[in-house]
């Protein structure tokens, strides 16, 4: 159980975080998203005990991160932003060092090391100097470090940043396989990642929490939720035609031209408008060549919520 209570952080008299509240249970994967500089990394640094909050508190498995730091940190595995590592060590030396600091010695350390080496496909590079590894490997080493002590909570700051699609896929399936009995928090810019991985999304903007829901509910915030795209047979849509059609459209529907000159029927109430559209097309004697329901892009919702000129 992770509880964040009235978190507030100011730095040099500037408010970086204000009034952040949420709690997570085992099995939840939280996508933590927001524009650059919104306060994601600061929040993660407070959750892991690296920074102290200005006010409010964080409880990790019943331990307060500020006053019972060591106990709380024992349950946390943390991949910091930018995956910092000791470049001059070999993968094996580095992981054993972290294991030792985590109070794993002898056979326990060897077991933990072997576990993460195979889990993260690092066996063949275990004796290589970290500095000489590719970006993808480095990130995996940093991730592996967070898993050595099999923590109950994983906090991952941009775990797939700089990885190629195959490596991303690997990390995704790894996170999925781990998610059953852990609390996982991922900060990311890639919203498709949130869609496929997370059971819950928190959006943070200018230091305040502006959304906290499941990705499927978040989608409903989109203007294009449940919208239908109709490509007309033999006809390309222009503005004049759009204006004409708009005059007779049912009240719960709005019309737009899509990027490929099709008609977009937008549901104002977010309910299904399939029937209305069908009746409308028949009444106007329009023949549809193709009708598709457009998949909502979370990017769109994200922009809608956080973009201000």
């Amino acid at each position, binding site marked *: 159980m992770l509880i964040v209570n009235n978190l507030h*952080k100011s730095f040099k008299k500037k408010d970086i975080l204000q009034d952040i509240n949420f709690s997570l249970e085992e099995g939840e994967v939280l996508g933590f998203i927001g524009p650059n500089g919104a306060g994601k990394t600061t929040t993660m*640094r407070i959750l892991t005990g690296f920074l102290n909050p200005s006010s409010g508190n964080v409880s990790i498995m019943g331990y307060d991160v500020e006053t019972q*730091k*060591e*106990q709380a940190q024992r349950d946390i595995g*943390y991949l*910091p932003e930018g995956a910092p590592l000791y470049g001059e*060590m070999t993968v094996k030396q580095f992981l054993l060092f972290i294991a*030792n600091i985590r109070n794993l010695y002898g056979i326990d350390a060897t077991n933990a090391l072997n576990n993460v080496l195979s889990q993260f496909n690092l066996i063949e590079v275990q004796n290589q100097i970290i500095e000489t590894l590719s970006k993808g490997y480095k990130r995996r080493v940093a991730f592996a470090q967070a898993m050595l002590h099999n923590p109950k909570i994983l906090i991952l700051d941009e775990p797939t940043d700089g990885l190629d699609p195959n490596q991303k896929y690997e990390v995704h399936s790894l996170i999925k396989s781990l998610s059953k009995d852990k609390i996982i928090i991922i900060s990311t810019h890639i919203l498709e990642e949130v869609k496929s991985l997370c059971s819950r999304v928190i959006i943070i903007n200018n230091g305040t929490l502006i959304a906290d829901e499941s990705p499927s509910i978040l989608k409903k915030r989109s203007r294009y939720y449940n919208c239908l795209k109709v490509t007309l047979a033999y006809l390309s849509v222009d503005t004049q035609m759009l204006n004409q059609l708009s005059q007779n459209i049912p009240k719960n529907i709005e019309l737009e031209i899509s990027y490929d000159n099709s008609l977009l029927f937008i549901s104002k109430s977010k309910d299904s408008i399939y029937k209305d559209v069908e009746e409308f097309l028949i009444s106007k004697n329009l023949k549809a060549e193709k009708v598709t329901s457009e998949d909502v892009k979370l990017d769109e919702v994200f922009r809608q919520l956080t973009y201000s000129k």
Partner: protein
Amino acid sequence: MQYLNPCISIIKRELMSYFSTTIAYLFLIISLILFGVLTFYIGRFYERGQADLEVFFFFHPWVYLILIPAVSMRIWAEEHKHGTIELIMTLAIPSWVFVVGKFIASWLFVLLALVLTFPMWITVNYLGSPDNSVIFTSYLGSFLMSGSLLAMGSAISASTKNQIIALILAMIISFFTILISTPDIWDFFSYQEDNFILNNWMVSSIMSIGILPHYQNFSRGLIVLNDVIYFLSFIIFSLVANIVLLNTKKPA
């Protein structure tokens, strides 16, 4: 005692990291050359015609002035720069374990440099019959002095992510910690009892903070309890400052 094993791991890792680059070897060679040149040429070791290491130890504070900041500058500045500070501060271990471990590692490294000056000791013993107990206490005093400067440098390093700033700051502050207790520097500031902002006892208490007189007792062959306590409390005070700086100097 639960932190003994992690502390040993930290010391090992630090020492390994020292020797993973050529800088460590360069440091050892330069320190030996410096000691040699100062003792034999500037100190006129042979011309003095005495089989002792007095000149050799006379130069130690000045050699340390250059060498110790070069060792201490990287201790924390590097962790800040590479972001590994975030990693090690979230490993469920109090920060003082890292502070102590890193300090001991750097002190062992300087001890190695000191041990490597053993040909000096062999030379004087070959040339005559020096008082080896004086040589021993001198080495001990030098070792304690190096520890004090290292601990101070480490604290300075914790306050910045720029190694060069850490180096220069440590040099300046070390310079004054060594010099503050010599009458020359007070002459330089044209100190006179009646026309100076500080009165006499203030000056003498400031002078007693300085490292030099405490070291000089050791190089005369005296182990005075006060001096030992002075160096140890200097080290402890610096390490506590180091811990405080680490916990306050963090990014947002």
